[in-house]
Each structure stands twice: as C-alpha cells, then as structure tokens.
C-alpha cells in the first residue's frame, strides 16, 4: 500500500521534460518533491505565477508572494507573474500540460466530484471547475476508499459534480488506473496489493487485462 509520498512519487513519473504543471492542494503538492532527475517542469500556480519555487527561508517570506494554497513561496529564474484571467486563460487554452488534483469521488467515465459534500458547509470550488473543464490531462491523486471503507472509484458520482468525463488517470494507495471507455483500467498494483483487493474496493467498472505488474518503488 502506498503512502501519500509514494502516490506523489508515482505521479511524478508521468512528468515529461518541458511540461507546465498545475498541482492541487494535498497529495498533488507533494509531487513537486519527486520530479525525476533530468526532467525540467514549470509549476503553474493559478493565482498568477509560472515557475513556482520552494517555500522561502524565514527571512525571505514575502506576503505578496503566495501560491494558490495561500502558502508563502518563492520564484525561480524565468518566473513570470500575471493576473487571474490570463492564468485561467492559459489553462483553458490547453497550455498547461498536466493537472494533478485530489478528489472525493471519480466515476468510471471520468466524472469527478471534489468540491462539495451535501449537508456540510460549502467552502467553494475555487479554481477546481476551471481546471477540470480545461486541462488537457488530469491525474487524480486520492485514497481508494473513504473513511467509511466505501470505494471512491464509482460507477457514478454521488456527490455534486465538479466536471464531466475529464479524469484521465488515477493513482491511489492501491494502484494506477487509466480512465477508458470501458471503465477504470488497472495498470499497476501497489506493492503487496492483490488484484482481488483492488476489485473488492472498486465499485465502478474495472478492467483487468493480463498480468498486472507490481509497481517498482525506489
């Protein structure tokens, strides 16, 4: 079973040199820690920055320089600032190569729910609906089941939808899945996890073709 950092690390393997990437809050943020050697990616923060750097040292903290999670950050050589409309403009125009975000539920047709739980105080969708509707390639990082032990990979989302048919790939603590016309296609198992366990914990259509390799963890 993968821990959060291992999920992030596995997603980082999807990065290609020259990619512009938007990382959501939570596990997706951790992806930045595992960018493979020799690969140069530029992080986009939708509040108006390309080329997001690491957190600042104590004496470098600048309240005017934050990321979309409202954390203090730094720039890198080659960074650029812009306004929120251009930021979502470049996202809508498909210039961001990859978006990684968390989810409460994903359906086997790629629908995603990640912004609202009925009965709970609504905080708002922020940029999530723009990102999911616009990004060319969306990878979801999430736990396979919720706290009640119920699958989050479903036939149909039960929570309010964030976007329809948009998720391309999912990495959970149990495995890696492509979203295909036939449902969730299992690509890799986490170390020590059986196909059987994944089947049991996946409510949506699951496609298992041939031997499913166990993921290499380094």
């Amino acid at each position, binding site marked *: 079973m993968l821990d959060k950092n291992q999920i992030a690390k596995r997603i980082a393997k999807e990065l290609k040199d020259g990619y512009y990437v938007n990382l959501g809050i939570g596990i997706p943020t951790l992806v930045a820690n595992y960018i493979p050697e020799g690969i140069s990616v530029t992080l986009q*923060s*939708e*509040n*108006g*920055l390309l080329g997001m750097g*690491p*957190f*600042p*040292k*104590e004496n470098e*903290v*600048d*309240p*005017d*320089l*934050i*990321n979309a*999670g*409202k*954390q*203090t*950050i730094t*720039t890198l050589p080659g960074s650029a*600032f*812009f*306004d*929120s*409309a251009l*930021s*979502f*403009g470049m*996202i*809508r125009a498909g210039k961001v190569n990859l978006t990684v975000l968390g989810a409460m539920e994903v359906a086997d047709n790629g*629908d995603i729910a990640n912004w609202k739980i009925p009965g709970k*105080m*609504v*905080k*708002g*969708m*922020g*940029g*999530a*609906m*723009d990102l999911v*509707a*616009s990004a060319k390639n969306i990878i979801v990082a999430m736990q396979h089941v919720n706290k009640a032990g119920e699958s989050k990979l479903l036939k149909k989302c039960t929570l*309010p*939808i*964030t*976007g*329809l048919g948009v998720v391309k790939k999912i990495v959970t603590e149990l495995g890696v899945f492509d979203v295909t016309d036939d449902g969730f296609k299992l690509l890799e198992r986490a170390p020590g996890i059986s196909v059987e366990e994944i089947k049991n914990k996946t409510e949506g259509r699951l496609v298992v073709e041939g031997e499913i390799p166990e993921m290499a963890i380094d």
Partner: protein
Amino acid sequence: MNKVVKNAEEAIKDIFDGAVMMLGGFGLCGIPENCIAALVKKGTKNLTCISNNAGVDDFGIGLMLQQHQVKKMISSYVGENAEFERQLLSGELEVELIPQGTLATRCMATGYGMPAIFTPAGVGTEVAEGKETRVFNGKTYLLEYAFEADFAIVKAWKGDTHGNLIYKATARNFNPLMAMGGKITIAEVEELVEPGKLDPNEIHTPGIYVHRIFKGTNYEKRIEQKTVSK
C-alpha cells in the same frame, strides 16, 4: 487629470448602502486594506461584494462581515471564516459561488466591453443550472455574463497621479481585472508617484480605468499560511 484623493475615507465617501462592489485580492494577498477599514468605519450596509474570497474572521472582508455590512458575497472560495458560516446558515448572508476563472473572466469582460464570455468551467455541474450552453468544436461551454459593479476597489504596489498602476508579484491576481470592471474604480497604492516616474512599458493597469487613487498607510499584509523551508 489629477485623480488623487487624500485617503481611504475620501475615496469611498460616496459608496452607498446596497452598492455592488468588486474587491481585489486573492486570500489576504493584495487586498485593499485601507478601503476596507474605511468602509467598516463608515458602516455602509447591504453591500454586494464580488471578491474571490471573503477574508478571515478578523481581517479583510471578514471585518465587514463582523459589522453585518455584507448582504451578498460573489466568490469562488469562502473557506476560512467562522462568522461567514454563521451568517450564511442563519440566512443573513447570501452567497453565490462561481468558478475562479469564470469570476476573473467576468470581471475582465466588463473592462473589455464584452457583454458575455464562454467558458467550459462548470458544465454539467450545479453552476450550470439555468445557464445557456453552447457547443463549439465539440466541446460544451457556458455563456457567462460580464459583471456590473458600481465600484471596484483595488490595491496596487505603485501608482501615479494619472491612475496608472503596477502590482507586485502574486498580489496582482484579481486587481487589474477588477480595476477595469468598476463604474468607479478606486486604487490604493503603497507608493504614489508623479507622472513620468513609472515606465510606460511596465504599467499593468492604464490610468484610463482608474478614477481615484491614494497612498495607503499601515499595511499589515497578513499571511494566511506562512510556510518556510529550512
């Protein structure tokens, strides 16, 4: 041509009960602290605030919420505010949640004289309810209307007396879009300079969009999530 007013009090003096306002900033970053303080002092009521966020309990728009000055928030994310939640649940406060890019683009549309824009954000979600959709090249978009606002209040880093503005880092965010969107636009700046001191090539908001400008004071610039590396 001199658009300078003395201070925030003078800048906001004609903001009336029931006005629709745009307020720049993302989280607490780049918010018009001086104008918010002046609005709290003035006690203007029943305001509709178009702002990406609603501040926190004791800072930003949260200060106006405490004084029950806000009738309606139009935002993308209103997470960290207990008083907000209380007023919302009690029915005292209305909230309209809008995807962040849609919010930004609807402000920009006003400044570009475009009555409406198309965006895929929210298609198939509750945001799309009652809205017109249209398919272009096989993809579905929502028709979203430009915002009308009586006043836009923005915070810039530097400005000149003609109203030209330059923002700093990610404190830019919604500010230039809202600066373009107000019938009356009020800018508070950290540094107010004479015309000619700013490089015309570096202006983010041309002065034509700005009606009043003043040098703000005592910026707190509170940080929501101070995160440091060792």
